[in-house]
């Protein structure tokens, strides 16, 4: 029996056109993606995580990631391919006949499942084959192709896709046989995708990787986890490994799905009874039966008035919409989808704004951001399915004949469906809002911003409606529920890639708009206008779609296009014509208005345009890069900021001095393209010999050259004017409140090498050779500049900045004068000593908190309600001043100012005695005692830059950030060590190791050692630098390291060019290092070293004298990697911390452990067994417990006894 059913099903599935269409869609989808990723096709470039630089497009890693991830999304096909193989019997009522046949359960269920499973595998092979075929195409960039490896395709197919089809298929099949409902199968699918999502979001935390690996039914988290720290070489060479987690995940979920299938098998009966979610059993009514007709009643129907006025049409519309609405809202699957969404909300609500494991206060915009993005997927799901359900409801219930022949106008059907969807949207918005308020209340946060709630929900709702209209239109047009769902899913996927297919203008992307973002400082600011215009534009398009759907609405039995068009013409009456015309006029009119703003008032540049421009710039002007230029010695700028108009004007001068040995007769000026130059004027006669306004490149020729040692003055008048709005990326430097203008708006002397294209592949497209990322450490001419500003050394700086009354304007320097004129406030700032050519101006309506450290004035300028961490920051300033001035050198200024700026950028930056600090990275942090106090840390880091950048600054060569970022990381870590518990330092090192190890996986060129770090390798100078310096002070001694730093500072602070290099710095560190530890210093600075430290076994027994004998089996391995990640194992001869701890116990409500043993040991073997005697009962042992050595598997550095300790 099994065999017949199986083969019948197989034949059936393979005879269906759908099977091949699905295959083809997957094939083409992957073919297109690969072509876009790897090809040099005009206007088509896609990038995904992990690909880039030296990673081959056909590396096992990329093949696996692509196929497997699109495989997850394609799971949405399974209800159609596997669910239907049982559902179609119920749908077509075949079960009434079939179930009376002598069919065995095993034969029926088994045969049907297997008969559907195999064709589904075939469909999914489309992905793999599409991938494989695309790789052979001539347009694939040959340089990014490695050797062909069949196993790279086969393994992901059989370890990921096939098990996933099996797991998902079994679950869906079981649900279909239990419930006999189509939607239940989709629910199963959604639930799996949700668990996959939960796994993904758990994976982001450092702590939850094991749970994440197991919870995700599709095994994605387990796989991601295995390749998390993979370098270029590993990605290119190795197959994605089958880790224990991955295999366990597969086994657990296959077992689960198998058990579910077993239950379904058990409960399945060949009856027409259905397992259903209803509590009451259905009972057929047998009223009035078996009574003979006793009298012939005459039918007398009361005459009624009928009304076909517009008012009664509205009543009918409301009645119909209510009917549809109630049907959706009461649908158990709708409730289930919402509940699933709420579960995901709860999971994500606990990590609102998480940075370094620390959450933020649940301010309204953060809550809405988290909830909105979490629920977005569910909105799409609801739109996709319920648009289908709405369009198909009458036909599904077979009420269509009756309803469609009612005296109702055509528009009422479509309108009622749409209004129902709108009402559903409102319910969802209310749910989100209530949940948001609950999150806030639950966290004891009562500053509800109803305005922000309404605005965020309104935006979400507009998306919901516009996409809803699109979905209803698609379902109406294609008139096939499955195809409709499928097209929508594909649409949502393509939407994510649209930008990369050359369609960057929001005019072409349905429902798109320039980004809009709330900031506590700036509100919604200037984003509102363009947002509304774009939404109105798309809304008028949606009206067109609506009218079209209306005209093509299926009313009756005509489904072929000839008759649909015929009916459409019939329905195209005057109101429809007027409506369509109005919508078209609005659409075209608004589109024109948008175009006028984005492309005429502003410049619209696609990625390609700007690449072309940059390539041209380099080709034409790079020959001037070496031309000797005068250097800026004085900057005197007046800046007028107009926050309301979002304009600003510079008016000032540079003093340029010829510091070279030869006369200079030409000066190059590079201009920031967004500005307008009103006036550029030298105080000597010049000819403009090159004037390229498009690229902002000018050359002035002096009639009398500037002689060596001589100076010239350059006066300039430059402005930035906001005109209309842009397609995207509006300027967030100049805002209504919270302006933050960098000095890079000012004219630059010389050629701007930062304009050059970076990525090798793109450079090749424009015929440019690979770019040298930064000058070599031995390049003395490059060292004439610091790495943050060219053609300038230390400069005298003064500025007068004016802003509108009510705002405070700030720039580096001391306030010498403040006055008001014409409703504007003027501030004059002057430095007392020379500073780097690196400054900024800020203007906002600030609240100010002041404090003092010795004779240093401390002030924090912040947004009024953001007072949570101000004292914390001031404390960090003071502790930093204490530590740095005691250990390195005196503080060179008599003020410190921290200035909050809106969250459109998320960093803090150190200017001389001035620290702009984003509102997103500390001001609303909700720091508990157990959390990493990152507002404190960021403050200490930026304070450290007052020494490590503003006293000592590296020349513009490799390793330059060692003297700034690495030392700032070290300094702040030391301040933190003094301030906080050791456990937090461990967590901090954990995060920094993670930053380093994660960062090196996305390296585009090659991983340098610390000594030669490039400024763009932030993962090295922040992550590795922090761990390295922290470890060195621990091994070598804090005093010795600080002494070295102090000596180094004495030698190099405020030096004239050539500027210092990391090699100069390294001498001081080496000098401080004793011979016995020189290996460690060298490892950290000169090599790429990775450890695999691990406690393999931890046992203990009580000794006779009441002590405890501990036996540890320790694994210690050491590897060296080259710049691409090729590793070789080294012999171990290294010192590593070893620690033994007692069990946890409570002191004053906090859990503590006693450290029973803590000592560095020299390990020489990969495996060693050691014995210790400790006084108390041990519970936990750790090797390198504070993560001072780089280790990819830090979780196995610890081992505990007893279950209580593991949890």
């Amino acid at each position: 029996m099994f065999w017949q059913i199986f083969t019948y099903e197989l034949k059936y599935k393979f005879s269906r056109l759908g099977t091949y269409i699905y295959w083809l869609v997957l094939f083409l989808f992957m073919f297109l993606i690969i072509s876009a990723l790897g090809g040099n096709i005009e206007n088509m470039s896609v990038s995904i995580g992990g690909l880039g630089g030296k990673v081959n497009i056909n590396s096992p890693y990329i093949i696996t990631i692509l196929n497997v991830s699109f495989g997850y999304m394609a799971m949405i096909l399974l209800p159609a391919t596997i669910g239907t193989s049982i559902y179609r019997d119920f749908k077509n009522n075949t079960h009434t006949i079939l179930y009376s046949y002598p069919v065995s359960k095993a034969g029926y269920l088994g045969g049907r499942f297997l008969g559907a499973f195999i064709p589904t595998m075939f469909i999914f092979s489309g992905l793999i084959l599409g991938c494989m075929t695309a790789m052979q195409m001539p347009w694939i960039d040959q340089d990014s192709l490695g050797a062909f490896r069949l196993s790279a395709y086969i393994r992901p197919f059989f370890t990921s896709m096939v098990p996933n089809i099996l797991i998902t298929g079994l679950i869906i099949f079981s649900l279909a046989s239990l419930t006999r409902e189509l939607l239940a199968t989709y629910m199963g699918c959604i639930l799996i995708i949700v668990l996959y999502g939960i796994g993904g979001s758990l994976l982001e935390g450092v702590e939850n990787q094991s749970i994440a690996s197991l919870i995700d039914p599709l095994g994605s988290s387990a796989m991601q986890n295995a390749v998390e720290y993979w370098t270029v070489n590993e990605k290119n060479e190795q197959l994605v490994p089958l880790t224990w987690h991955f295999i366990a995940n597969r086994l657990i979920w296959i077992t689960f799905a198998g058990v579910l299938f077993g239950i379904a098998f058990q409960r399945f009966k060949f009856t027409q009874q259905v397992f259903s979610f209803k509590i009451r059993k259905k009972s057929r009514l047998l009223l009035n039966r078996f009574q003979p007709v006793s009298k012939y009643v005459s039918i007398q129907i009361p005459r009624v008035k009928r009304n076909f006025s517009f008012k009664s049409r509205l009543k009918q519309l409301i009645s119909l919409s209510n009917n549809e609405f109630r049907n959706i809202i009461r649908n158990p699957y709708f409730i289930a989808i919402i509940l699933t969404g709420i579960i995901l909300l709860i999971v994500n609500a606990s990590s609102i704004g998480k940075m370094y494991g620390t959450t933020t206060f649940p301010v309204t915009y953060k809550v809405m951001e988290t909830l909105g993005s979490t629920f977005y997927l569910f909105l799409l799901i609801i739109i996709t399915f319920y648009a289908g359900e709405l369009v198909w409801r009458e036909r599904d219930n077979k009420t269509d004949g009756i309803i469609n022949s009612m005296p109702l106008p055509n528009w009422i059907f479509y309108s009622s469906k749409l209004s129902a969807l709108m009402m559903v949207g409102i319910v969802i918005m209310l749910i989100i809002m209530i949940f948001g308020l609950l999150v806030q209340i639950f966290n004891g946060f009562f500053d509800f911003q109803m305005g922000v709630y309404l605005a965020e929900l309104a935006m979400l709702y507009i998306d919901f409606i516009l996409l809803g209209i699109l979905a209803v239109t698609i379902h109406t047009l294609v008139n096939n529920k499955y195809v409709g769902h499928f097209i929508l899913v594909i649409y949502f996927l393509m939407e994510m890639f649209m930008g990369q297919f050359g369609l960057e203008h929001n005019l072409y992307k349905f429902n798109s708009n320039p980004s809009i973002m709330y900031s506590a400082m700036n509100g919604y600011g200037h984003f509102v206008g363009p947002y509304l215009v774009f939404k109105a534009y798309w809304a008028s398009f949606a009206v067109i779609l609506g009218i079209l759907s209306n005209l093509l609405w299926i009313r009756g039995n005509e489904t072929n296009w000839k008759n649909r068009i015929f009916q459409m013409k019939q329905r195209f009456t005057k109101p429809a014509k007027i409506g369509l015309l109005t919508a078209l006029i609005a659409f075209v009119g608004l589109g024109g208005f948008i175009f006028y703003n984005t492309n005429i008032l502003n410049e619209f540049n696609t990625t390609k345009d700007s690449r072309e421009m940059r390539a041209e710039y380099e080709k034409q002007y790079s020959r001037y890069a070496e031309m000797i230029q005068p250097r800026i010695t004085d900057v005197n700028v007046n800046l007028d900021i107009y926050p309301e108009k979002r304009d600003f004007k510079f008016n000032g001068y540079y003093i340029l001095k010829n510091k070279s040995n030869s006369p200079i007769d030409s000066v190059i000026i590079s201009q920031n393209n967004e500005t307008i130059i009103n006036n550029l004027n030298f105080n000597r006669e010049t000819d403009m010999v090159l004037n390229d306004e498009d690229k902002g490149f000018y050359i002035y020729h002096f009639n009398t050259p500037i002689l060596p040692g001589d100076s010239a003055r350059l006066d300039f008048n430059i402005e930035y004017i906001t005109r209309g709005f842009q397609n995207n990326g509006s300027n967030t430097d100049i805002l209504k409140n919270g302006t933050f203008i960098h000095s890079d708006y000012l004219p630059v002397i010389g050629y701007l090498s930062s304009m050059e294209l970076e990525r090798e592949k793109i450079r090749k497209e424009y015929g440019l050779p690979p770019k040298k990322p930064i000058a070599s450490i031995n390049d003395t001419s490059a060292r004439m500049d610091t790495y943050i500003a060219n053609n300038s050394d230390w400069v005298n700086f003064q500025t007068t900045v004016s802003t509108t009354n009510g705002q405070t304007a700030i720039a580096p320097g001391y306030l010498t004068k403040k006055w008001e004129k014409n409703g504007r406030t003027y501030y004059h700032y002057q430095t007392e000593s020379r500073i780097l050519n690196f400054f900024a101006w800020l203007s906002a309506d600030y609240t100010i908190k002041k404090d003092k450290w010795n004779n240093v004035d401390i002030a924090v300028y912040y947004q009024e309600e953001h007072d949570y961490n101000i004292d914390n920051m001031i404390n960090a300033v003071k502790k930093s001043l204490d530590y740095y001035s005691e250990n390195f050198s005196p503080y060179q200024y008599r003020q410190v100012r921290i200035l909050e700026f809106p969250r459109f950028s998320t960093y803090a930056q150190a200017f001389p005695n001035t620290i702009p600090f984003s509102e997103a990275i500390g001001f609303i942090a909700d720091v508990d005692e157990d959390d990493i106090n990152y507002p404190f840390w960021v403050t200490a880091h930026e304070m450290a830059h007052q020494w490590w950048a503003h006293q000592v600054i590296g020349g513009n060569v490799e390793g330059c950030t060692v003297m700034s970022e690495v030392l700032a990381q070290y300094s702040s870590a030391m301040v933190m060590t003094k301030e906080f518990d050791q456990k937090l330092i461990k967590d901090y090192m954990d995060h920094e190791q993670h930053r380093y190890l994660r960062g090196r996986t996305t390296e585009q060129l090659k991983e340098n050692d610390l000594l030669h770090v490039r400024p763009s390798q932030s993962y090295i100078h922040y992550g590795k630098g922090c761990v390295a310096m922290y470890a060195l002070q621990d091994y070598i001694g804090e005093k010795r390291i600080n002494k070295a730093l102090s000596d180094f500072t004495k030698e190099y602070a405020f030096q004239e060019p050539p500027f210092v290099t990391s090699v100069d710095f390294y001498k001081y560190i080496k000098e401080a290092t004793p011979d016995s530890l020189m290996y460690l210093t060298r490892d950290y600075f000169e090599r790429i070293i990775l450890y695999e430290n691990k406690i393999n076994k931890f046992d203990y027994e009580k000794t006779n004298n009441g002590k405890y004998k501990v036996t540890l089996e320790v694994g210690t391995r050491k590897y060296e990697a080259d710049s691409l990640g090729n590793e070789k194992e080294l012999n171990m001869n290294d010192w590593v911390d070893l620690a033994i701890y007692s069990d946890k116990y409570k002191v004053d409500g906090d859990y503590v452990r006693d450290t029973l043993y803590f000592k560095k040991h020299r390990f020489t073997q990969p495996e060693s067994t050691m014995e210790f005697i400790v006084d108390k009962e041990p519970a936990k042992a750790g090797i390198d417990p504070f993560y001072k050595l780089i280790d990819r598997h830090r979780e196995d550095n610890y081992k505990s006894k007893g279950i209580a300790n593991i949890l």
Partner: protein
Amino acid sequence: MELTINNLSKTYPNGVQALKNIDLNISTGMFGLLGPNGAGKSTLMRTIATLQEADEGMVKFNGSNIMTEKIQLRKQLGYLPQEFGFYPKVTAENLLNHFAELKGITGKTERKKLVDKLLEQTNLTQARKKKLSTFSGGMKQRFGIAQALLGDPKLIIVDEPTAGLDPEERNRFHNILSEIGENIVVILSTHIVDDVSDLCTDMAIMNYGEILLKGSPSELIEEKKGKIWKKIINKSELEDQVKKYNVISTRLFTGKIIIHVESETKPGESFEIHNPTLEDVYFAQIKNNHTNS
């Protein structure tokens, strides 16, 4: 009040010609459209109910073209499709009320009265609070006719309403139908001859998309008088008899077979004259149509 069908043709995209040049004039009263399954009856019904377009031809109701003035017809139409269902979770009363509103009866009290009355007339008063998913086939059909009667229809189309009903329910259903056919046009499409003979004053027989015969049932029966002969035979003789005579129908009777033969004269010794029924008219017509096509 008159429904005129002129030269109506319809071919489906798969090539099946469901309607071939249909011409019919239907006036007030109950009109029966009789034909076997697949004859094109439902296509015709749906076309009249404005749910389908015809390729050619015209349908007029009281002079107005229903193809172009769909809404005019719909205002006067009560339609009970062959296959239909209802929203399962709604009660009979609520759904009928909802339908009444959709038919333009927007006055609340008036509507309530009408709904109550119709439920009473269709003997569903007791079940009015029950969900439609719990209804038996007969109740569902009665609910179907109740909704068709909403809003004072001038044209009622009932498509195969008695298929699958037990005799008693069918009886009950006939009872309702017989009461409404007085002043309006009622078209009853069916493959059950008794439906027509019980109810209709006028009828047509349809097969392969064509109208084979039109007239009143009694006249049509009259025409066959003296032309139908019957005979009881053994099963083994059947093949032989079919070859020999114009057998229009066969029926089992106590293990033997009764055959009906159409013939102007007595076909043979063993035959006896049969008093024709509408069934004989129907079978004779279908048989002839078969032979001809």
